[in-house]
């Protein structure tokens, strides 16, 4: 495997490691963006109002048990006639990743808002803060630690699952694994797996640093 990594032709070019990593990050980034767009507002709404707790808990559990490989094939078949070109594969891949990432983001956000000290919220209301100010000045900042933890597990899931995009003939690090399997090149498969793992760890580290910078020391109790 070291030999595989030390071969410069494996790194550059349109199917080199660099290009695949970039593709992988783009799929993951787009999926994470849409998952946040869906999961954060729902989590905030449910946490703030206390309405729909049972609904989102059930939804989250149902989404978690979705078989991603089966779903992506189904969606490709469904969307095939609708989209031209690569979009017929990209849209289904992104949808699968978004569906995977929404539950942890949604539950983390909901749990974070629900766990905010009720006395602080009562004080905020009693002193005359309006509902949206309470949400953005008190509930959201206090919920950040749990929101970030949801975001981290969502990101890990997305990055590891984004390999299946290659299954429907797209790029990303999954290429190395799928192609390696087809060519019986186990070194290439192993290299792909190691790269996915390393990428997941790096991105996790980056989110960890981001959370350290944005979460108040009043919550982390770290000075």
């Amino acid at each position, binding site marked *: 495997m070291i030999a595989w990594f030390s071969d410069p032709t494996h790194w550059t070019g349109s199917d080199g490691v660099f290009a695949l990593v970039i593709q992988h990050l783009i799929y993951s980034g787009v999926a994470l963006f849409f998952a946040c767009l869906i999961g954060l507002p729902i989590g905030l709404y449910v946490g703030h109002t206390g309405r729909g707790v049972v609904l989102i808990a059930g939804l989250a559990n149902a989404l978690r048990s979705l078989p991603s490989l089966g779903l992506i094939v189904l969606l490709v078949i469904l969307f095939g006639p609708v989209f031209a070109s690569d979009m017929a594969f990209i849209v289904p891949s992104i949808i699968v990743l978004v569906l995977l990432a929404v539950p942890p983001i949604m539950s983390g956000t909901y749990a974070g808002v629900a766990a905010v000290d009720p006395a602080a919220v*009562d004080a905020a*209301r009693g*002193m005359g803060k309006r509902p949206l100010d309470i949400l953005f000045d008190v509930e959201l900042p206090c919920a950040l630690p749990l929101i970030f933890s949801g975001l981290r597990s969502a990101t890990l899931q997305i990055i590891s699952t984004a390999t299946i995009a290659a299954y429907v003939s797209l790029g990303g690090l999954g290429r190395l694994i799928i192609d390696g399997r087809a060519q019986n090149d186990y070194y290439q498969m192993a290299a792909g797996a190691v790269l996915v793992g390393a990428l997941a760890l790096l991105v996790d580290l980056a989110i960890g640093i981001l959370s350290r910078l944005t979460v108040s020391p009043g919550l982390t109790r770290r000075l």
Partner: protein
Amino acid sequence: MITFDTVSKHYRGQTVAVDKLSLTAPTGKLTIFVGPSGCGKTTSLRMVNRLIAPSSGRILLDGEPTDTMDVAVLRRKIGYVIQNAGLFPHRTVVQNIATTARLNGTPKDQALRIAHDLLERVGLSSAFANRYPWQLSGGQQQRVGVARALASDPKFMLMDEPFSAVDPVVRGQLQDEFLRLQRDIGKTIIMVTHDIDEALKLGDQVVVLRTGGTLAQVATPQELLARPADDFVADFIGRDRGYRVLGFAEFAKGGVPLGAEPTATLGATPETLRQIATDRWVLVTDPLNRPLGWADVDSLKGPLRDGDLNLSGTLAVEGSSLRHVLDAVLSSPSGRGVIVGQSGELMGTVTLSHVAEAIEAARTGRLGTQP
């Protein structure tokens, strides 16, 4: 002035939390709502800033009905202090305090300046300014909570069991400090408590509510003790009300004759003590003449040390109530209650018979002024 005009609150048409409450909390005074749990005292308080909407009736602030005001604007006029302080955990102490000033449109710099000033007013050093709530004790958090309510300089304040989440010693300190603060700021305050002692100690006016949310009595603490309206009020004030009345009878200068008390200092030999002693007990003071405790002459073996002192006696500060003076007498091993001046220096001692005379005089005086 906060006026309740036949205010009621029912839930789902069945349970009545507050029933046709009419009363006035006078301007600049501290009005206390007290009663057993389920008497609707917190509900009544929360209807003032419309955290709970009244089912019927009106509440007026200085004659202005609250039901037509914008709810956020209404709340910003009223300081709000709650049991567990409810500080924002992600904000520092000064940021917390500055919140209410910012909400009322004070520029940021000025709000922070106000916050720093208030920190000192509520008895916290500026070292606390940039700490976070988790670094503070319960009592300190409560002080910050009070400061935060004051930062917008509201005319009115609502306080929901503000001192009940801290231990009794801290509670006493917070109450004393708050009384001093209120003497300066003179806000129109409604405070809720379940603790009748707190109500009698702090209130200018006490509102006793009974289960079901009806008014039992509105009176000053003295009136409440002297003339409870009915069995419920009498029962709620408790058994010790005769003793509690003494808390309002001031121990006037010269009201009780002070006896001169011979004193010794640490290091005195048993012989010296026996010479100055009038009985078994000699009062020991420090070099500044502040009482330290009583020494038992009979059991003393060598020169007087710290460990020989009996510390059971309480000290009554000159000008404090007869309740404190009586307590000083009853708790003193010699039977002579120690009276000290404002800076803690010994003024003299009093005996039980003298205190009894003063109590009797206060009682006849009080009965004499009754209509």
